[in-house]
């Protein structure tokens, strides 16, 4: 029986040691755990040998071997506590050397009689006589264990999440193993001289093994691979099934007959096989569920969670809101310590549920990390990644996995999953939930980014339009102001020009009228001066009018009047000029009355100008006639002269400002200001009418005006 327990303990211990050693050969805790387990195994061997029915001398040798093997155990225990879970920043070398020296001293004393002097049988019961070194051994053991215990307890208090769960199981396992082993195999022997429980000692190491395994499987202790964790679950399931079948076979064998055991065994074997095949699937599911419950807490309803997340993804379009709601929900339900989403295409590239720790520096690091792992598809578990800076960083920020968000080939972002706050590992369900929601989130992020882009663009556009409008309004106001100033200037300037011109014109007139003593020559000069002053006054008047027409300050005073009457008046005024040059001035209207609605004075100016020009450019003894044609809505006025005509090229420029100067600096014989036709055209156009010219060298020139009746 003792040997069976020993063999099971040794095999289990060696398996665990190999696993831990293979996982990370360089990490101090891994190495120490391996040494610790090996020492426990050696102790089991020595302890078992000491209990074999051999003579007292041999037994004393094995007892001393036990003492030798167990002496370093508290030191290793302390070192594990010292280096767990990671190497401290400052290693106290002096302390470590001192403790090692003490252990070495005790180690040297173990084979001597100072530890145990004799092994004897008192009344059929084995008895050991402890020496003074036994006390030193006990002191070393208990002090180091206490120190290790205290260190682990403080580490347990300061750790969080997964680490806290890990530390808890390691502490519990170590303490139970060390305390129980020390009590049964040292205290009982030395203090009460009771060796009856010595055989149990090594089996206590199984407690540590169980706790370590539990921590490895459930809380990823010592970075054991996810696959191994899964295999362990499967192994557990397989062995359970095997046990059940063996038990079933054994029970059936016991119940039924013993005589036909051989044939019956075969029949039962077949029955059991069929039963196994039939029950495999349901049993598997049941046991899987059971293992999930034991090892992983299944706290959320996956279907409900997916439904809610899909709802969030489909009802939120603003990136910030979408992500904050999505991450919050996911974190709440799946209980992650943190969730961080890196979206390179957005303004705030990094979003996290853990806002306190999301410093600028961390943001930058996350950003870099996302580019490190962006080539990975689906889910990346950091535990499965080879050691690298990225992995180191993931460890620092307590990250377990990364998910890529892709739409087609385009990478939208990376989601980093923190540890589960329960310390649990991912379940298969977790993984499938994450795989389902990944594309959902990707599409939602893509939509939100597009929306963000459009709304930013819209905002910019609005701002731009508002800015342009403001600028335009300002420019408009400035132009209005300028226009007003120009108008004012022209008004004042024309007034200022007219005043001295009035004086000149009037005094010249007086001089020409009043005195008859002037010589013909002087009179002629004064007449030229008088005509020039009149022309200048006319020019000023025209300039003022153009300024008003062009500045839209030219108001029309519309009223109904008889246009035939108006033409007659103008003819009367200009008759003198016609007579001077012996021109036949003809106006024979067919009707006496044609009423139009227009500005009478402005139309008068136009007629004075057009008819005046005709008289001016028609040679002596020529002919000028005015004709009126009246249709229902339009009145046409035609002024025809028998002048020299205007060539085609000049006709086009006739209605331009200072048209004469345009094509030649040579002045015509009868000079005007060159503004009259331009002003006439503007006035007619203000009345919604039109004016044209036709001319030929044979028949002279004719101007046609069309004016609407109303």
């Amino acid at each position, binding site marked *: 029986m003792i040997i069976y327990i020993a063999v099971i303990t040794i095999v289990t211990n060696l398996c665990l040691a190999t696993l831990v050693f293979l996982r990370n050969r360089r990490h101090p805790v891994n190495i120490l755990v391996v040494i610790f387990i090996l020492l426990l195994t050696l102790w089991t061997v020595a302890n078992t040998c000491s209990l074999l029915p051999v003579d007292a001398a041999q037994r004393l040798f094995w007892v001393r071997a036990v003492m030798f093997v167990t002496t370093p155990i508290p030191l290793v225990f302390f070192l594990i506590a010292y280096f767990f879970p990671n190497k401290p920043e400052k290693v106290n070398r002096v302390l470590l050397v001192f403790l090692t020296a003490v252990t070495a001293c005790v180690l040297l004393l173990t084979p001597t009689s100072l530890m145990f002097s004799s092994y004897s049988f008192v009344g059929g019961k084995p008895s050991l006589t402890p020496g003074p070194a036994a006390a030193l051994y006990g002191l070393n053991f208990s002090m180091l264990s206490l120190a290790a215990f205290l260190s682990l307890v403080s580490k347990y208090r300061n750790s969080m999440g997964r680490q806290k769960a890990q530390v808890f199981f390691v502490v519990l396992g170590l303490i139970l193993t060390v305390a129980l082993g020390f009590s049964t195999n040292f205290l009982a022997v030395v203090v009460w001289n009771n060796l009856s429980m010595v055989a149990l000692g090594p089996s206590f190491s199984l407690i540590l093994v169980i706790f370590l395994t539990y921590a490895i499987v459930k809380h990823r202790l010592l970075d054991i691979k996810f696959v191994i964790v899964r295999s362990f679950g499967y192994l557990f399931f397989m062995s359970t099934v095997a046990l059940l079948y063996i038990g079933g076979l054994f029970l059936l064998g016991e119940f039924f007959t013993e005589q036909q055991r051989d044939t019956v065994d075969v029949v039962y074997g077949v029955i059991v096989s069929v039963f196994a095949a039939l029950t495999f699937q349901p049993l598997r599911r049941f046991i899987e569920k059971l293992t999930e419950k034991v090892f992983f807490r299944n706290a959320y309803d996956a279907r409900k969670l997916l439904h809610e997340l899909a709802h969030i993804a489909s009802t939120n379009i603003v990136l910030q809101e979408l992500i904050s709601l999505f991450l919050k929900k996911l974190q709440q339900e799946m209980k992650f310590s943190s969730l961080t989403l890196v979206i390179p295409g957005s303004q705030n590239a990094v979003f996290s549920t853990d806002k306190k720790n999301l410093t600028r520096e961390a943001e930058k690091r996350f950003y870099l990390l996302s580019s490190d792992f962006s080539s990975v598809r689906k889910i990346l578990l950091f535990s499965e990644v080879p050691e690298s800076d990225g992995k180191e960083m993931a460890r620092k920020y307590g990250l377990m996995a990364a998910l890529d968000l892709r739409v087609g080939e385009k990478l939208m972002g990376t989601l980093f999953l923190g540890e589960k706050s329960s310390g649990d590992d991912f379940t298969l369900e977790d993984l499938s939930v994450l795989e389902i929601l990944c594309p959902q989130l990707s599409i939602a992020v893509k939509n939100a980014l597009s929306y963000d882009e459009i709304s930013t663009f819209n905002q910019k556009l609005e701002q731009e339009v508002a800015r342009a409008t403001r600028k335009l309004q300002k420019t408009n106001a400035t132009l209005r102001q300028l226009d007003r100033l120009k108008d004012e200037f022209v008004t004042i300037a*024309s*007034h200022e020009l*007219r005043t001295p*011109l009035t*004086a000149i*014109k009037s005094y010249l007139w*007086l001089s020409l009228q009043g005195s008859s003593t002037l010589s013909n020559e002087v009179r002629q000069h004064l007449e030229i001066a008088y005509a020039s002053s009149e022309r200048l006054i006319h020019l*000023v008047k025209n300039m003022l009018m153009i300024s008003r027409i062009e500045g839209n300050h030219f*108001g029309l005073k519309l009223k109904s009047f008889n246009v035939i009457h108006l033409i007659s008046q103008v003819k009367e005024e200009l008759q003198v000029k016609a007579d001077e040059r012996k021109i036949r001035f003809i106006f024979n209207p067919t009707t006496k009355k044609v009423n139009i609605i227009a500005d009478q004075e402005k139309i008068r100016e136009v007629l004075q100008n057009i008819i005046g020009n005709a008289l001016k450019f028609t040679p002596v003894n020529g002919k000028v006639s005015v004709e009126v044609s009246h249709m229902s809505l339009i009145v046409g006025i035609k002024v025809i002269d028998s002048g020299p005509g205007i060539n085609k090229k000049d006709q086009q420029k006739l209605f331009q400002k200072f048209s004469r100067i345009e094509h030649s600096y040579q002045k015509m014989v009868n000079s005007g200001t060159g503004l009259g036709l331009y002003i006439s055209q503007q006035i007619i156009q203000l009345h919604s009418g039109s004016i044209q010219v036709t001319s030929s060298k044979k028949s002279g020139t004719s101007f046609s005006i069309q004016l609407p009746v109303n």
Partner: protein
Amino acid sequence: MDSKILIIEDEPALLELYIFLLKKAGFRVEGVGNGMLGLKKIIKNTYDLVLLDVMLPQKDGLELLASLRKRKIKKLPIIILLTNLDQESIFEKAAQLGVSDFLIKSDVLPDEFIVKVQKWLS
């Protein structure tokens, strides 16, 4: 022909011209060079006709007309605006303030000017 005429005109050359023309036509004429004096004279004396410029120092023609209206003088003389400011808005405002006629200085010849005055005084 014993009518009394006041000319309010700041341009000496023109003031002299109008005084000369009117005296020659047989009127009694007084002339002043700014709006303030013109207003005082109208209030103090009685005139048959006032020839009023618009752009004047101290008080312009329109202001003078407004002051006159406020004082509610019983018998106002005939007022003719005599200006070179060719602006419809001014004529409209002046008409509202009781002006009888407008003359554009640069457009009227001396004989036309006298004819106009005589017409208003007859």
